[in-house]
């Protein structure tokens, strides 16, 4: 399991790559907690697009992360969930308890307009 994070326009994106089972869950939880503390007050996106396998341990990781992150007043969202992992979330009945997005949100038109406007005034 490889955990990484980077800053995107929309917030902090944490990415898990590899297999997420019981053996890897503790490492993921620790990484999420550290990153959450490091970037307090910023929206957190959990990118699962790199997962090649996930079992019900992933449900506990995501629900635990949501509880901690939203409890600290930050926003939390899961993006790029592979279909095989989505079946686990559906079987667990948590697809309506967590916000799932197909991909990272892009900047809104207003934000892009403001950036373009700022550039043109230089």
């Amino acid at each position: 399991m490889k955990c990484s994070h980077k800053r995107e326009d929309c917030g902090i994106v944490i990415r898990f790559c590899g297999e997420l089972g019981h053996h890897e869950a503790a490492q993921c939880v620790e990484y999420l907690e550290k990153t959450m503390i490091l970037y307090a007050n910023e929206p957190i996106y959990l990118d699962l697009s790199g997962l090649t396998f996930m079992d019900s341990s992933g449900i506990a990781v995501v629900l635990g992360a949501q509880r901690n992150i939203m409890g600290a007043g930050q926003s939390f969202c899961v993006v790029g969930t592979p279909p095989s992992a989505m079946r686990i979330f559906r079987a667990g009945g948590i697809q309506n308890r967590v916000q799932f997005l197909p991909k990272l949100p892009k900047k809104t038109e207003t934000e892009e307009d403001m950036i373009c406007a700022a550039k043109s005034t230089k």
Partner: protein
Amino acid sequence: MRSEINQMSIKFPSRSSNEAFARQAIAAFAAQLDPTIDEINDIKTAVSEAVTNCIVHAYRNEMGYITLGAKLYDTGEIQITVRDKGCGIPDVQQARQPMFTTGDAGRSGMGFTIMESFMDKLKVRSREGIGTQVTMTKQIALRFGQK
């Protein structure tokens, strides 16, 4: 009447690092039935849940052995057994309820629910102090040209 075409059995210690090994082993064995990627994923997920239960619950405070067995039938069926000699389950009916767990906060309590959802049949036999045996069956869809 179905007849058995192959079988295997492996025994490994209840280390969490062996979960991935169990998943890969069952996937390699089940591949003889020419399953789809989705069918293989279902089998791997169910086995992962069963093996995790042995590690987290059956051998909670000790190291023990887990036996993973599988049989293939000419009807395209695979029967998988995951057996431990751990503490056993006091109430199997209760343990099979969604969200029920005696594990820590890191467990979702969805193990048996996932096994039931991803396999066709699930049977759990357990005796306290003796151990638990989970038997799961899945029918692999026969493709064109297969007997």
